[in-house]
Structure formats: C-alpha cells, structure tokens
C-alpha cells in the first residue's frame, strides 16, 4: 500500500503489527431455523439453513468484511457469533472461551467485550428513551458506570467521541438525522469498552454523502481504540475500502476468503468474479470498457439448497462434479481460501478447468 498521507499510514502500520493474535475463531458454525407446520401441535417439516458450516479466524485489530447478497446469511452469521441466536452447531471461540458452551451469566459478562452496531438507525433506537439513557443503558446493565454523575459524564464523553454535541444528552432519537442516529448507535456500542464490534450494514440506510462520515468515524475509532470489526455489508466498494480481509458468502457458506487486494485483483470463485463485475463504477469511461458477467436466475431457497456446490445452479463454469459433491474450502496460498472445484488440486488433475480471468 502506498500512502503519502501521514495519519492513515500510521494507522495501517499500527494495524499490521497487531494482526497476529487470533481474537475470534469461528469453527463450522451452523444456524438452521426450523420450518414448522401446524398451529398447536407444531412439527418440524424442514429447516432454513441460513448459515451452513462456516469457518474463519478474526485477528485482533483487523477488519474482516463479510459480503454477500440479501439472504446469504451474513447478518445471521453476525448474530450467531454474538449468541443473539443459539447456533445449531459449531464453536465460536472468543478470547479463548467457547461462547456456545458457557452459561448465561458468563455469556452476559462476555457481552461487554463484544458489541453490535445495527443496520437501521431508525429502528434500533428506542424512541421513548433519551440519548443519555440509550447510551448509558449498557453501563447500567453491566454495572460499570459508577454513580449517576459519573455515568452521565461517561455518556457525554462518548457522544463527543462519535462527533455529537454532549449537550444533546437529553434529546430523543427523532430529533436527529439518520447519520446522527447511527452515531448514537456507535456510542452505545462503545459504552462498555468492547474489543470486538459486529457492524451489521451500518451505512446502508444512510445517504451517500453521510455514509462517508460514518465510515471515517469507524476507521478513526478503530485506530484509536484498537477495535476489531466484523463488517457486514452488501456494498463491495465500501467493504473493500474498510476491510483488511474479505469473506464472500453465498447461500449460507463462505465461498472465498482473502486479503482485500488479493480478492479484488485475483478473485477465484466464479461467484466472486460475477459479484465484482456487477458493481457499477462511477466513471463512464470505465463502465464503457467493462465486461459484465451477468448471472442467470435467482439465489435458490436456503430451505432446499442444491446438492453439491450451492452455486451450481447459476455458475457460468459449472462442471459435472459440482452437481454431485460439495467443494471443500481450500487454501490456495497465502491465506487465500476458496470453495470451488476449479481450484481443488485433486480434481484439477482430472478436470481441465481453467480459471477465467475477470475483466474488471
């Protein structure tokens, strides 16, 4: 990375030096929701496999971007990691403790270390509470605020950190704009001094000119407080801007995971290639020259995922083997992992599947 800009250069080197400690380790995480029939006697007739076996590590101080289209399970992943849902299977090891395997009291104490920023700043703030009580509530719940006075001071300090006027403490959410509300949500997440924050589409409800304000705020906070982010979004341009590594999800599975630049310069999975080529670029000269990979059809239902590879119904490079077996999530070098038979070494000997370069 070449940066002339002193401030952000400091940030990136600071981040890179701290990226060797695993903060969170997700192993074969599954989140299935039952489909039931009947009103009184409910019986399960199937399940929505929202997240179906995903594995990744998150390093302290890094930002992992989780991208995918609606319904791919990226938000469910975020919630299942924080144990807002009880995962069907798998382990979530955070700071050395398996969150799926501890009692509720311990879990509550762990929640101080991990927080969430929600997508919709209009729905995620209680309209009857003042900003002071919204941001102060976590302090009260975890009994870390001290006296009322100290608590109020802490809240005002937090408001200032996120760029809001501390005198707004007695106002209600409706008195704020969308961007300001999202700042309140950020202040609430920061109240308990977490080390890990799940950002669930934190900017997609905001106007373009306001999005950049919130992205910059999140970046500043990360460099000041050494936060670790799981940044969930569907906007690939934004994810690329903010993330160190990126995981691409499709129908409940991670199909590709790589360093930011590697993923954008050398996407391997056909879905990643299609996704990247579909992102419009705000430059007419570039747009004229681009070749789009237009995927046919829609995402299959997660209640009945196809057999074999999940993507085989839409894949432009589908092979016979894809309809029968599921590709494993293999490392193709330097932490670049992909779940596709085109790159599965054993199969590559038999199949002459050549990766097709994407025109970006």
């Amino acid at each position, binding site marked *: *990375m*070449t*940066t*002339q*800009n002193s*401030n*952000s250069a400091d940030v990136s080197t600071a981040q890179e030096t701290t990226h060797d400690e695993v903060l969170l380790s997700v192993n074969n995480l599954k989140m299935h929701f039952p489909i039931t029939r009947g009103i009184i006697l409910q019986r399960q007739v199937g399940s929505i496999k929202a997240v179906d076996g995903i594995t990744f590590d998150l390093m302290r101080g890094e930002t992992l971007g989780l991208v995918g*289209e*609606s319904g791919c399970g990226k938000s469910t992943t975020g919630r299942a990691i924080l144990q807002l849902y009880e995962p069907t299977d798998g382990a979530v090891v955070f700071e050395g403790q398996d969150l799926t395997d501890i009692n509720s009291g311990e879990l509550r104490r762990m929640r101080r270390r991990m927080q969430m920023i929600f997508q919709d700043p209009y729905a995620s703030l209680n309209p009857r509470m003042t900003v002071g009580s919204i941001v102060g509530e976590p302090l009260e719940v975890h009994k870390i605020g001290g006296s009322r006075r100290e608590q109020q001071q802490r809240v005002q300090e937090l408001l200032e950190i996120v*760029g*809001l*006027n501390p005198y707004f403490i007695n106002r209600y959410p409706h008195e704020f*704009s969308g*961007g*300001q509300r999202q*700042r309140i949500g950020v202040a609430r997440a920061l109240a308990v001094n977490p080390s890990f924050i799940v950002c669930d589409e934190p900017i997609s409800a905001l*106007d*373009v*000119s*306001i*999005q*950049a*304000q919130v*992205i*910059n*705020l999140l*970046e*500043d906070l990360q460099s000041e407080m050494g936060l670790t982010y799981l940044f969930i979004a*569907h906007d*690939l*341009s*934004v994810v*690329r*801007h903010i993330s160190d590594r990126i995981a691409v999800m499709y129908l409940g599975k991670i199909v590709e995971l790589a360093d*930011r*630049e590697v993923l*954008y310069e050398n996407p391997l999975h056909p879905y990643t290639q*299609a*996704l*990247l*080529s*579909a*992102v*419009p*670029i*705000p*430059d*007419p*000269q*570039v*747009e*004229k020259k*681009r070749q*789009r990979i*237009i*995927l046919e059809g*829609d995402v299959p239902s997660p209640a009945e995922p196809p057999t074999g590879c999940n993507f085989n119904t839409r894949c432009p490079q589908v092979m016979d083997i894809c309809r029968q077996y599921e590709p494993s999530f293999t490392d193709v070098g330097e932490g670049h992992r992909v779940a596709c038979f085109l790159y599965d070494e054993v199969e590559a000997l038999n199949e002459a599947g050549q990766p097709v370069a994407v025109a*970006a």
Partner: protein
Amino acid sequence: MANLIEVRNLQTQFFTQDGIVHAVNGITYDVAEGETVAIVGESGSGKSVGVMSLIRLIPEPPGKIVNGEVNFDGQDLLKLNEEELRQIRGNRIAMIFQDPMTSLNPVLTIGRQITEALELHLNMNREESRARAIELLELVGIPDAGARLDDYPHQFSGGMRQRVMIAMGLSCNPQLLIADEPTTALDVTIQAQIVDLVTRLQSELGMAIIWITHDLGVVAGLADRVLVMYAGFIVEEGPVDVIYGQPRHPYTLGLLRSIPRLDLGRQKRLIPIEGLPPDLLDPPQSCPFAPRCPFVIDKCLEENPPLMAISAVRSSACWVDLSDVEIYDTSADEQVEAVA
C-alpha cells in the same frame, strides 16, 4: 433529436401543518426522443417529486404544482384534465417504481395486472391482451411466461417482480419510461440483470428514459445525460462523461469524492460532505449548498446562483469556478467532522 418532453420552471410544494415544504423549486430541462437522462440526488432532493409532477402523480392536497409547464408533444401536461391525462399515463408515458414488493397488487394475478393497461389503453380483448402479456413477459426474460401469468406477486422473487413491473411499463410501447430507483431494492447481481435488460429494451424499442437514482455508479454505465439535484434545484447538468470527468458543482464533486471506488487503489480516506441538507420547510435564500460547501465565497450567501451555461452542453449553478479542481485530491485536509 427532437425534444420529447420540455419541463419549464416546474415548482412543486407541499402544504403541511408545519408549513410549506419547498420540494421542487423551479426546474427546467428537456429530454430528447430515445435519450436516457439520469436524475441524481439524495433523499429529499426533490428528484422523485420533480418527475412525479410531470404526470401529476403528486397527491393533491397536500401537494400542489404551483408553477411551470410540461410540454409533451405539443400539450402542456399540467393543463390537461384527469381524463386526458389518463390517456397519457401508462400509455405514452409509463413508470416503473422503486419497490417491486409494494407496487404490485398482491391480490391480483400478474396477468391481470398487465392486461388491465392493454385493455384500457389499446382496447384489446381478453385473448389479444393475454397473448401480448405473454409476449411482454418473454421480452423481459421471465421463463415459462404462459404459465406464470396466473401466478400472484408473492410467487416471484424481487428481481422477477421488477421484471414484471418493467413488462407492465412497456406494455403500451411508451415514448417515455420513467424509472424511479428501479434497482435500489435489488442485489447487485440482480441490479446488473435489470440494467442490462433495460438498456437492451431501449435499443430495441427506442423509448426515452428518465432514470431516477442516488447511485452514481449505476448512472455512469447507463445515462446519456445527468441532472444533479440538491434541495429542489438542479445544480448541475450535462453529458455523463463531462459531469464525471470534471464536475463543476461542489455538490457533484462531493458526491464523487465521498464514495469509495472499486477500481482505484485504496483511497486513504473518504472525503464526506460535512453537515446536513437544508430543511425544505425553511429553505435558505442563499445557495442551498453553501453551509456544506468547502468552496463557499461571500456571494454564495447573498444570492442563490441560477443554473448557468458553462459550455454548449453543460450548465452548473455555482458562482465558483471549479475547472482546476481534481476529483481525487490527495492533499485534502483530514478534519474529523463535527456534527452540531
């Protein structure tokens, strides 16, 4: 190309309990036959209201078109009565709405919803309209169109519903298609399908398109000409290459700077537009962008700049000459924004 529609000094306001909302404040533009014009702006910029006013889809009250002319094929649409207007809406000027989930009637089959316009405008009988509906669904790429005609909207996915909306919009061969954020509710891969479809249909059918969006990326690959709106005014207008190559209004510049680009190296830091858009209940007399503008001069606070031609093809509403400003400036200040 001849102008298909000429909008002159269009002004739309909403009379609410809190006062008058100045949604559209005198906009003037033309759309030529077969041309694609994109109207870009953020929520509340008046882009949807401005276009809805053309075919008088503004609820009255509280809304009212207080001033202006809309010349379409020699008639002023704003002077027509309801009956005359109905001959044009859905027939010669069609519209696709943003949200395919809510803009289809859930209790009517897709077939019924498409054939309604055909029977109404083209006086087709049941068999003819059904045959035409199947043809339209095939045109927009819905597989097994004949069977799907009797399905209800909930049986279609979001992208498929938007295709149905497009089929309905195209049913009477409109001369002008108004698309109000047709891809905003869709995923990127589906968005690419729809943009691809609309561009293909336009080259086949030759209609003009007004495409309303907040996404500068979509516009770049789609439009011939761009209008940028802010606080109910057109602040910049011109061919798409020119506007993106060298924006001449600070708001357009700010928009381009505040979005990360997938194809460039990682930008060090995004440059947001500070502050918030003005309250349209009480719009300032000055330039509406002045409080957020990094290039502001005294004149901006005294007089709101009109849209002025700066070359044969483009115009901008700004007193300051931005012709030397680079879009992706590397030496920009690093201020932490203070929102007060």
